[in-house]
């Protein structure tokens, strides 16, 4: 059963991308292809998660070549959980893009490229092979280059160039790392690498650990490798920014967690270094956010800041810490996409997302106010929202591991996050009503967006609330996933038999 299910989150969107290209002239058919594919992918992801939670890690080998020779797709609880969160977010953002009027989303290439992005994200989660991970990243990133510059505007080209060049440097480093790892161990299969890593000298192991941390750190936007992010994300079309914010950096975090826990023995992991980087990422990210005056830019800096919490959970290398990191990643995928979609709604209804140019939106569009307020409070970690659960998990894990300094930093950052959320609220939603453009259609005039835009954003907001209600089962599942990650015996058995 799993042998059939595992390739689907990659194969389905790729196949649909081809189909979508073939029907490029018929816009409604193209939209239907995208939505139906991602809906099926979501169902498949749920089936995978249920399967691996019941029976333990599963592996599928492409072309019938067993590992370590063939290419393996592997799913454990962590993979399943990521897929289950990522797929509905991809779906919701696509619905938003369909509902948003504008030339950029209506380009015939938008849907095929978006589906390739979905396939790349799925493959990054599923692959059990380091070189294949590079291919997955390239799929995802090449799609993201196109999506980021799809309008061809001057600002998109300027910031897109930075984004593409930085991503390519990271890719070259990743290929070099894979080459060096192959030269040292003779394999690129993750499970096989985990077994053979022990034979290498201690210094070489540490070097590989740091190399992989840095390579994926560029993609995850950790300090000091994040400067490309707040510049490039806000210029992309809204739906694209939302999916980048929700997923791409988290794929980087996923890869950091996967490689550091699977490949390296407890003594080889640079735990202290990771904690320092985590603290710096949190603090510098939030300070950057405070200095900004545009909703999208503020939120982009918060992406960086929140990555710090996830890395902090990982850096503790305890079951509680990694479980907290997983809960945090799950939360942020939904939250960040939601907030960026709301920023897109503000942009759509008021004509700008600069705080100086808009105001009083809460009175004008009460629904829009609620759609921002709930996830914003959640992001700041106000109880009883899901962000609070995630922050509490990280901080509790930090206390248990007696990492006082980092925990203190994370608490301060949390307060500053609340401050910058109030800044958005005060600037854009309170005060005297002020908009740059008058909406043309009826629904936008009353609620601030078209029906699909509001519905998809609303669904994601309900998703963030559901994460708070389901916090108990989610934390338990994450703890089981974290225990798997720290004791990878079952994972190795599934791949190597």
């Amino acid at each position: 059963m799993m042998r059939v299910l595992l390739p689907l989150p990659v194969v389905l969107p790729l196949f649909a991308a081809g189909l979508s290209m073939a029907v490029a002239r018929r816009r409604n058919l193209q939209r239907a292809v995208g939505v139906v594919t991602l809906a099926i992918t979501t169902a498949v992801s749920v089936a995978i998660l249920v399967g691996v939670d019941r029976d333990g890690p599963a592996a599928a080998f492409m072309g019938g070549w067993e590992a370590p020779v063939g290419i393996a797709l592997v799913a454990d609880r962590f993979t399943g959980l990521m897929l289950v969160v990522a797929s509905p977010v991809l779906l919701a953002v696509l619905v938003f893009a369909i509902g948003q009027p504008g030339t950029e989303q209506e380009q015939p290439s938008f849907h095929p490229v978006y589906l390739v992005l979905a396939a790349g994200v799925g493959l990054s989660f599923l692959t059990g092979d380091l070189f294949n991970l590079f291919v997955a990243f390239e799929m995802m990133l090449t799609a993201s280059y196109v999506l980021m510059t799809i309008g061809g505007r001057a600002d998109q080209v300027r910031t897109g160039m930075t984004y593409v060049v930085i991503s390519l440097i990271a890719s070259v480093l990743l290929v070099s790392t894979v080459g060096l790892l192959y030269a040292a161990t003779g394999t690129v299969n993750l499970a096989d690498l985990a077994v053979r890593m022990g034979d290498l000298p201690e210094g070489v192991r540490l070097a590989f650990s740091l190399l992989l941390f840095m390579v994926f750190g560029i993609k995850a936007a950790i300090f000091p490798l994040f400067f490309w992010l707040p510049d490039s994300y806000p210029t992309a079309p809204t739906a694209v920014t939302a999916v980048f914010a929700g997923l791409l950096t988290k794929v980087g975090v996923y890869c950091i967690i996967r490689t550091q826990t699977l490949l390296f023995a407890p003594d080889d992991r640079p735990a202290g270094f990771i904690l320092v980087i985590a603290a710096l990422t949190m603090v510098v990210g939030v300070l950057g956010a405070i200095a900004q005056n545009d909703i999208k830019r503020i939120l982009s800096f918060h992406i960086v800041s929140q990555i710090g919490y996830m890395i902090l959970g990982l850096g503790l290398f305890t079951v509680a810490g990694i479980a907290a990191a997983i809960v945090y990643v799950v939360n942020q995928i939904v939250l960040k996409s939601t907030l960026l979609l709301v920023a897109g709604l503000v942009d759509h209804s008021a004509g700008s997302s600069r705080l100086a140019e808009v105001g009083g939106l809460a009175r004008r569009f009460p629904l829009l106010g609620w759609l921002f307020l709930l996830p914003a409070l959640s992001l700041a970690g106000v109880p009883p929202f899901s962000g609070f659960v995630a922050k509490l998990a990280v901080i509790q894990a930090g206390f248990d591991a007696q990492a006082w300094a980092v925990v203190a930093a994370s608490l301060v950052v949390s307060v500053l996050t609340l401050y910058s959320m109030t800044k958005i609220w005060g600037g854009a939603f309170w005060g005297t009503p002020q908009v740059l453009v008058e909406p043309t259609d009826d629904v936008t005039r009353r609620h601030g967006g078209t029906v699909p835009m509001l519905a998809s954003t609303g669904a994601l907001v309900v998703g963030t609330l559901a994460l708070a209600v389901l916090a108990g089962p989610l934390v338990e599942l994450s703890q089981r996933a974290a225990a798997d990650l720290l004791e990878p015996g079952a994972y190795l058995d599934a791949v190597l038999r």
Partner: protein
Amino acid sequence: MSLILALSTALLFSCGTWLLLQRRLSRIIIGLGLLGHGANLLLLLSGRRRGVAPFVGATDGERVADPMPQALALTAIVISFGVTAFLLALAYRSWQLTGDDLAEDDVEDRRIAHDRRVLTDEELTDQEALRAAGAEADAGGEALGEDR
């Protein structure tokens, strides 16, 4: 042979890095290409065995070359080919929009440089030069904008 390959890898990486640090987009793209080639050579070098071509059934117990790095390098070459084409298109679009091949200043950097008030004499001269350069670039950009 390995030594020559290793030296070429080093040369490609260093030239690529140097070109990457230039301000012209065309040089940056060539630099990325060189870096990619360096990485591909590195992949080839990581093979552990040499021998005849590794075809199934074509060898009778002879020593075959390690096929893995070749497969990896081939994949990496295809990917970098596609991405380089995209980069060139992007650079061309940038040239269309700005009429220049230079990587543009960061908007934020320019604003901060503009907003700073308290400065030493030396910084002031620096900043005047910078602002003059900025104004020149702006004027140039506008003039070109009108052209279109």
